[in-house]
Each structure stands twice: as structure tokens, then as C-alpha cells.
């Protein structure tokens, strides 16, 4: 008997109980949706994180007080929280120690005191600017470029001049029709002279890079206080060949700066693009594992649902089975008919789950400004799993149907 004949029969009988078939499919759809949705989001974000993080540049590594990853272990968290801040003096000392290795050492103190607005005369930006106290290496280390005006110079930093470089969004808002250069803007109650503007950059992870404002780190610390500030230090190795050597030297320098003895653990974190990506991968793995567990449970429940519906269906259609057998249907034809029905339910549910999952995952990805992806591998795995579930859930009911006695089935009302 031809397979397409059996398929046609399966679709015909599923069509008889449309609502019931759909509800049974829904279980599978939910299971597949959750895993595909998460996998799509994670892959989309990973692509975007890998490209987004390259703003650090490939030969850059950073020191900071806190690690990027999630630390679940309470003990080590307390230990990290007990760490001393990285002070400006320590950072500058580090800079000096690294002079023979590299000149590009970017110090950063990010503003963390709530929403920040910039004002110029009667014009205002939206709150939510991103202000960083930093030095002249900010541009190189973060791949920003100057649109008009100039970068900071070492003198600006040494003297702590009240100047600023502002992002494209701020320029648009405050200076729609005039040059911002030399103008005085207010940031967090202080006044700074604009010496330059950043070229437009777009956004990473849904966060616009054009809301960026930088001021000299020295000025920043005196304006906003240095008590609770721990400085991030980004260092660029001269090239790829000298990267590991530079990292080693940098760690030694940091240990000296921090006054650590030979046996002490590092009381700072070092991370690079690689370690950020690894940290993300760790989180992503945990999310993935969670999604797999959840969808595994959902799919298990769904397969019980399919088996249940198939058993009900076999009982309801006992007479039909009797008729088919009485006119010459072999066991295998009946078995295949019911098995394929189960597989069709499962696969249809799976395909719906894949499409919904890809749509939702990519919706999230678009919202976070990441690239759209189609997780072929997970979609393929999903279809295989759905087939297996269909066969697994349908086999027993199908065997039961195929073994029915023709004459007894015909008598069934």
C-alpha cells in the first residue's frame, strides 16, 4: 500500500477532529517553541555579542574589581565584594609600569548615579546618558572616532580640565543648528566645554552608543567624588604576537600596584574579548540547559497527550478498523495508518513550534538589535525529536489497532 495513500487517510481522519488534533499538537508546539525560541535568541545574541564586544578591539584586555560572569557561590562573592577599589593613583602607577610595553592604557570610571541629562540653554536631552570619566585612549580602546573638534590630550587629563566630548544623539538634541564646539553644556549639575563630538556609531544590545559623553577622569573624580569609584583599566597590546606577553606583564604590574605578596591571589579580574565571550557562553549554556529541561518536560507531557488521543481514537474507530480489515487491510496498513497519524500530529506541532520559536527568538533579537538567525541545527533536531515522539507515542495504539479482531471490531458500536 502506498505511503501517500496512508498519509491522505491520516490527514483526513485528523481533519475530522480538528480541535482535538490542534490541542494535541499544541503540547508539542509549546515544547518545541520554548527550545527553538531560546536557541534562536541565544545564537542571535551570541553573534551580536561577538561583534559587539569587538569594540574592545582584538588585542585589548581589561582589569576591574568585579568579574563579568555570574558568581553563584556566596563565599567567593563576599570575597569579591571585600576587594579594595582600584584607585586613580593605582591606575596611574600601572600606566607608568606599562610604559615599556604599551602606551595605550585607557582608564574608565563610569557614572552610576542614576539617569543623567545634558542641558544647553533651554534644550535638554532625554535622561539616560552614558557618562564616563576617562583619558585620551578612550577612542582607540573603544573604537570611537571624532566627528568634529578634538580628542582629549594628556594635558587635559593632568590638569583635570572641565571639558567634554559628546555623542551624536546629544549633538542632535542640543545643537540642532549650531556648532557645539566651545559651548558650555551642563551634565549632572556641572558645566563642561564641548571640545569634540563622536561620529555616529549605532547601538549594541539595544543600547545606543550615541548617548555617550566623556570627561577627563581626573575632572570626573573631583566633580563626582572618588570614594566609591573603582577604575576599569583597558590595555591594548601592541599586536597579536605580544598579546600574551603583555597580559603577563600587565598582571605583574597590577599585582605590584595592588601591593600583593607572592602567595596572594589576584584581587582584581582580568578579562578580554575571549573571556567576555566565554562568560557569555557560560550564561548561554545555562539558559540553553534550562530551555532543554523545560522543553523536555513539555514534550514528555505532550507525548503522553498524543498517546492518550491515539488510544481514544483507536477505540472510537474500532468499527472503521473492522471495516478496513474485513475488506483486506493487512496489519501493517492499519499500523502505519495510526502511526503516521501520531507522527503527523507531532511533526505538525513541531513545525509550528519551530516557526513560532524562530519568530519570537528573532523578534527578541531584533529588539536587542542583533542579527536575525535561523537555527537550522536545532530545527533539524526538533523535527527528529518530534518524529521520534510521534512514533513513540503512536506505536502502542497503532499496534493495538492493527491486532483488533475484524469481526469483533465490526460489531463495535
Amino acid at each position, binding site marked *: *500500500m*502506498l505511503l501517500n*495513500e496512508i498519509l491522505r487517510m491520516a490527514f*483526513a481522519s485528523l481533519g*475530522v477532529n480538528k480541535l482535538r488534533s490542534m490541542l494535541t499538537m499544541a503540547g508539542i508546539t509549546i515544547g518545541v517553541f520554548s527550545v527553538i525560541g531560546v536557541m534562536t535568541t541565544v545564537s542571535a545574541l551570541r553573534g551580536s555579542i561577538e561583534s559587539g564586544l569587538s569594540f574592545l578591539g582584538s588585542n585589548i584586555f581589561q582589569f576591574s574589581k568585579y568579574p563579568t560572569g555570574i558568581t553563584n557561590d556566596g563565599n567567593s562573592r563576599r570575597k569579591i565584594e571585600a576587594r579594595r577599589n582600584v584607585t586613580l593613583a593605582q591606575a596611574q602607577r600601572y600606566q607608568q609600569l606599562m610604559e615599556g610595553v604599551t602606551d595605550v592604557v585607557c582608564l574608565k570610571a563610569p557614572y552610576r548615579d542614576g539617569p543623567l541629562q545634558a542641558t544647553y540653554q533651554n534644550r535638554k536631552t532625554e535622561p539616560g546618558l552614558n557618562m564616563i570619566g576617562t583619558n585620551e585612549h578612550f577612542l582607540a580602546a573603544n573604537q570611537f572616532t571624532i566627528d568634529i573638534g578634538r580628542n582629549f590630550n594628556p594635558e587635559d587629563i593632568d590638569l583635570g580640565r572641565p571639558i567634554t566630548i559628546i555623542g551624536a544623539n546629544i549633538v542632535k538634541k542640543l545643537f540642532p543648528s549650531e556648532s557645539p564646539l566651545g559651548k558650555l553644556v551642563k551634565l549632572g549639575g556641572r558645566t563642561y566645554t564641548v571640545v569634540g563630538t563622536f561620529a555616529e556609531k549605532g547601538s549594541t544590545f539595544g543600547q545606543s552608543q550615541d548617548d555617550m559623553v566623556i570627561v577627563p577622569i581626573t575632572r570626573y573624580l573631583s566633580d563626582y567624588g572618588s570614594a566609591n569609584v573603582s577604575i576599569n583599566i583597558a590595555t591594548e597590546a601592541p599586536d597579536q604576537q605580544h598579546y600574551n606577553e603583555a597580559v603577563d606583564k600587565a598582571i605583574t604590574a597590577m599585582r605590584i600596584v595592588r601591593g600583593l605578596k607572592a602567595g596572594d591571589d589576584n584581587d582584581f579580574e582580568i578579562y578580554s574579548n575571549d573571556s567576555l565571550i566565554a562568560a557569555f557562553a557560560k550564561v548561554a549554556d545555562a539558559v540553553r540547559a534550562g530551555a532543554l529541561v523545560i522543553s523536555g518536560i513539555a514534550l514528555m507531557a505532550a507525548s503522553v497527550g498524543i498517546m492518550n488521543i491515539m488510544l481514544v481514537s483507536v477505540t472510537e474507530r474500532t*468499527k*472503521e478498523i*473492522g*471495516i*478496513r*480489515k*474485513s*475488506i*483486506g*487491510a*493487512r*496489519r*501493517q*496498513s492499519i499500523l502505519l495508518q495510526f502511526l503516521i497519524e501520531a507522527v503527523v500530529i507531532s511533526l505538525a506541532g513541531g513545525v509550528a513550534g519551530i516557526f513560532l520559536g524562530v519568530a519570537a527568538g528573532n523578534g527578541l533579537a531584533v529588539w536587542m538589535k542583533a542579527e536575525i538567525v535561523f537555527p537550522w541545527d536545532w530545527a533539524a533536531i526538533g523535527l527528529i525529536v518530534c518524529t521520534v515522539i510521534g512514533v513513540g507515542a503512536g506505536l502502542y495504539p497503532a499496534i493495538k489497532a492493527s*491486532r483488533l479482531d*475484524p*469481526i469483533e471490531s*465490526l460489531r463495535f458500536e
Partner: protein
Amino acid sequence: MIPPTVSRSAARAVRPPGALVIEIEGVTKLYKMGTEIIHALRGVSLNIRRNEYLAIMGPSGSGKSTMMNMLGCLDTPTAGRYEFSGKNVAHMIDDELAEIRNREIGFVFQTFNLLPRSDALHNVELPLIYAGMSPHDRRERALLALNNVGLGDRIHHRPNELSGGQRQRVAIARALVNNPSIILADEPTGNLDSRTGEEIMALFEQLYEQGNTIIVVTHEEDIARHARRVVRLRDGLIESDGPID
């Protein structure tokens, strides 16, 4: 519809019977209903040769349908021997029986047993589907079979959109569509007016003349008279067995 080829009064030739095809010996069938045991057949022996035309008669509950189901390889005897074409049915597996039902036997059920959700055409095509025939060929065959029972204009009606007599004719078309050599019909004219009944019987007569074996259950003497041999059942036993009249 095929015009009756043989009139009632015409002399009906008895064709020379062929090889032994059905051999039943001491067959009993018991049904257990809770503690009660019903003897539907109490020891029946019967030989049927190819190209015989047999009527099975008897009062209601005498075991006619039980016997037909057995002959049609749908049911198995509780005791006794049934050989189909020299092969013991008790030794055949499910699929062998399915094969015989599909290719050798055309069964017209007393209660039609049509698929309720399929139209007449699909119901008639079904045996051909299980025989593995191509869609084109089986459609042609099914249409022909439906035309032969006068239902060429009802092919897309479902059973519940057909009258009792029309359903019966769909059941007959389904039984004949695969050109089976043995036709088993349980009260095939039970729901038909006498004219349509005669037309169906004429169709059977034609099939008999083409060399097929016909076994008809009926309680109407008029219908039984079409056969060449009558077996009378009473209380699960054969009361008489011989040529008509």
C-alpha cells in the same frame, strides 16, 4: 444498470462445478455471554465447489451470518476444520486471511459496513487501495462497479446521504470491485424493493455465468430460487442441503 439477462421462467443451466474451494467439517461456534454460552453453530459440515450458486436459508438467529463470517475468513470456528482452497484456515496468519479477503472474496454485509465519512466512490475504492492498485486504475474500476449497481450519479454521496437500498448497492459494488471469484452476500436484497432486488440478482446470475462462486444468505424463497443449491439452517445445524426445488 444491466438489464436482467435471465428471466425467472427461463430454464437455468446448472454449470458444471469446479474444484473444491470451501470444505467445512464439524464446525461449531460458541459465544460466551457472561456465564451463558450460545451455540451459534453446533457442528456443520459443508463442501462448496468453485462456480456453485448457493443459497443459505433459515430462521432468524439460526446462524446464517455466523456461518458467512466464517466462510469469508472473518471469523474462526471454535472447533472443527475449515479448509479454503485446500489450506486450513486455522493455520493461516492474519495477513494471509487479509489477502484472501482482499483478493478472493467479495463480502456484502447484512449491515453494509460502509465507512461513514467517506463517499460512495472512496468506499468502493477501498479494497483496491489495499490491493495496491494505482489511483487512476482504481478510480476507473470503482466507477464501473458503481455504474453496474446503478449508482453512477451518487458517487460523491456519503452513506448518510444515501437511502438504505443505495447503501446496500454501494456495499455490493465494493464487494464486486476487485473481481473476486467468490461472492458472499448476507441478505443482499434485504433493503431493496423487488425490482431493484431482481436487478441485483441478475447481476449475480451474470457473475455466476462468468464462472464465479456465489453464496447468498436470504430468507426470501423468491431470492433463493435464483440459486442452484439451498442449504437450510436451523438452530446452528444444517437441516437440509440440496438442489433447488
